[in-house]
């Protein structure tokens, strides 16, 4: 498929709102999930580390 120009590609034959509305929201949510997962992993590891030091303090 040859779009000819970037403007034509972005215009999506008049359906830009629907096509890009779908793709951008999908992209945004997928990126958000990856970021949230990374944050969750970091906080889980930090919590474990905290529990580890607390357990050592008890001894």
């Amino acid at each position, binding site marked *: 498929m040859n779009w000819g120009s970037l403007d034509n590609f972005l215009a999506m034959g008049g*359906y830009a709102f*629907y096509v890009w509305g*779908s*793709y951008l929201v*999908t992209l945004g949510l997928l990126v958000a999930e990856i970021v949230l997962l990374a944050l969750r992993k970091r906080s889980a590891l930090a919590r474990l580390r905290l529990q580890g030091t607390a357990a050592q303090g008890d001894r």
Partner: protein
Amino acid sequence: MNWFKYSSPQSFFPLAGKLALWFGALAAIACAAGLYIGFFVAPTDAQQGEAYRIIFIHVPAAWMSMFLYLVMAFWAGLGLAFNTRLSGMMASAIAPTGALFTFLALWTGSLWGKPTWGTWWVWDARLTSELILLFLYFGFMALQAAIDDPRRADKAGAVLAQPRPCQGPDHGGDDADRNGRDGIRLLVLQHRSRTDAGALHHARARTRK
């Protein structure tokens, strides 16, 4: 080979950390290839113009929404059967992703429906059962979040998540056939949610004691 070796979170976590990188790279490559074919190889649709390109993410999202539910229910069921901690972790980890793809299926379907059907939404059996699927994910997450003890939360979630063959909307068959099947699915679903409410009530009564 000992199949239960990786059912312990301690031995699974390092393996998952290594595999996640490879799977992530594979997913990125597949995404790039799919987007390239969807935008630059596939020709304009004769009837729908460029709006049909939404289908290239709508269908995978809808597919994932249903597939992830089955995977989630599979792990939850395995957790009930073998009492493995990791199974419950898998199920809880999948739920938000499943909800995300269900939302995306609804969102992109709506954006495709407006230019193609002339409406954002209809209370058709397929669309309605996809919406119910979203609520099932929310219900699963809410139930797990409401129970403090993780093992108990896993069990309650597993009972709630057991698969109802009714909930998958599909596009196969002719309209009469499809409406008939979806009608039955909705009936079964209503029945199941009632029995689930009963089971939950019992579970809650037991927890109070």
